[in-house]
């Protein structure tokens, strides 16, 4: 029997990735408009989920702030969209979110467990209600118009951010900083005494993950053309990335990617097929996934794989 070596496996994986990339780059040329829009949503959720995992995966700090960082990006796009060219707007959206993350991080990263969770979620609601009040009482508006660009442009921009996020996450995981983050999650005190600058690592990674969320928000705003605080700071966007990451499994980088892709597709499918029951079914699937997939889809598949592989070995 031919046993695939790790080198061989690597080449297969690279090949698959390359083909996937080509399909994704070329799909706006032949795919229907609907597919392009769906893929954009999928990319957005992969970006949110992977960037959530970059920080919360190894460190174990469960952040419910994605909606805040995303929303800041959305608003950056709305406020600056008519002033700067789009790439600059996206960059600024990301940077604004990073700045917010640095402040929040410096304030809160000594909070552990449920307190950190509550603080980050409070942040989303605070921004939402503050901007709502601001728009009604100070500027006298509700919502804003965002300069639009074509679906294809949005698609490619999101794809670009997606590729950068995945590359960043991959490189970070393999680097000494990825190791340091993991050590922080396992025992913060020991990590500090091994020379890891715990605070700096946590804040910078939190800011890095916020950057991508903000960039994703800045891009998505251009697709929505009209935004208001309830769209920009939708609390659901804080929970979904966490669920998607858990659904996929946070142990491997492709876990959150697969989780986000499947979940987003599922949501879209349910909304179109069962518009009246979709939340019910979706909620049920969430509960089911938490109950029966403790290590995520990837963890379960690996287990199954091992069992099958183990059985084969026993046969031979």
């Amino acid at each position: 029997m031919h046993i695939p070596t790790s080198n061989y496996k690597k080449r297969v994986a690279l090949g698959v990735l390359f083909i996937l990339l080509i399909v994704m780059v070329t799909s706006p040329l032949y795919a229907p408009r609907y597919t392009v829009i769906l893929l954009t949503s999928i990319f957005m959720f992969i970006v949110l989920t992977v960037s959530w995992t970059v920080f919360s995966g190894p460190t174990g700090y469960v952040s419910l702030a994605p909606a805040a960082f995303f929303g800041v990006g959305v608003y950056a796009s709305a406020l600056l969209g008519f002033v700067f060219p789009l790439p600059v707007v996206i960059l600024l959206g990301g940077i604004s979110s990073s700045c917010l993350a640095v402040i929040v991080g410096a304030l809160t990263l000594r909070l552990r467990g449920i307190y950190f969770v509550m603080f980050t979620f409070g942040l989303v609601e605070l921004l939402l209600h503050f901007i709502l009040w601001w728009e009604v009482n100070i500027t006298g508006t509700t919502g804003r118009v965002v300069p639009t660009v074509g679906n294809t442009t949005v698609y490619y921009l999101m794809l670009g951010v997606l590729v950068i996020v995945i590359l960043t996450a991959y490189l970070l995981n393999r680097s000494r900083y990825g190791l340091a983050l993991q050590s922080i999650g396992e025992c913060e005190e020991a990590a500090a005494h091994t020379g890891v600058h715990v605070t700096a690592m946590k804040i910078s990674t939190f800011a890095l993950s916020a950057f991508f969320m903000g960039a994703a928000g800045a891009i998505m705003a251009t697709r929505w053309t009209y935004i208001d605080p309830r769209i920009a700071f939708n609390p659901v966007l804080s929970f979904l990335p966490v669920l998607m990451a858990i659904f996929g499994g946070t142990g491997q980088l492709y876990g959150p990617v697969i989780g986000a892709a499947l979940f987003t597709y599922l949501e879209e499918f349910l909304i179109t097929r069962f518009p009246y029951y979709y939340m019910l079914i979706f909620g049920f699937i969430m509960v089911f996934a938490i109950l029966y997939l403790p290590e995520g889809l990837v963890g379960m598949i690996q287990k199954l794989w091992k069992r099958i592989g183990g059985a084969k070995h026993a046969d031979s």
Partner: protein
Amino acid sequence: MIVTVLDILIAGLLMGGIYALIAVGLSLQYGVARVLNIAHGEFIMLGAFITWSLYTAFGIVPLVSLAISSPLVFTIGFILYKTLFTRLRISSPSVAMFEGKSMLACFGLLFMIQNIAILSWGAEIKGYSYLAFPVNILGAKFAANRLITLGFAVVFGSAFYLFLSRTRIGKAIRAAAQDAVAAGLMGINISWVLALCFGLGALMAGIGGTLISMSYQIQPTMGLEYTMIALIVLVVGGLGSIPGSFVGGFLLGLVGSIVTYVQPGLALVAYYVIFMLLLLAKPTGILGR
């Protein structure tokens, strides 16, 4: 001037009563059963809609309908804990894990309950008028139903407190809150006590919903806002402390009515600012050590 101050004070107390009641429910669920129930507001919404249905369809008075809605939401909560959360608790290696997972599971429940409510009652805003005549208190006018709401909030809250501090079951619950493992060793059926707590938390939410429906408009998506308020009260009063939740509820109600007087629309913002400042400065709550 004095009338204005009284106005603000009483309005704050009226709001605070409801805040306290719904926070006590959440406090029980988190403090003892370790479930940070993001779907708490959904139970409030259920209580409100059941009351609305019974009143508009059969003319059953809200306070009587409590006798029907309370056992119902209690049972839902109890069964949910017995099935879903007990399973999660057993399969989670640590308390922190269980807290995280159960919170996410609650988010799924939130989706499901909301959907069921929209299917049953539609997505529109609803309301009914019951005991809405004005009552004059020291020159300030308040709707009678709000005063009744406050009265019932205090009565239920105190009854509940007495239940926890005086009865055998209450003592078992408090023992479980201190140390579930030790309580189990003392012969307390932990799984049963925790499910009871979760059910009682849902029951408090249901009562809160009934009271809310008497004075405010209701809709299936109303839940999250009340959940967040309950959560804020919880942090203000100290996680898991029942008297703390009570004090915190009234305090937040007062803050709300003062801020609303100064700048309408900023009340929620003020709540969140207090919430986050307290988390940073004194996460054990104002009564905590």
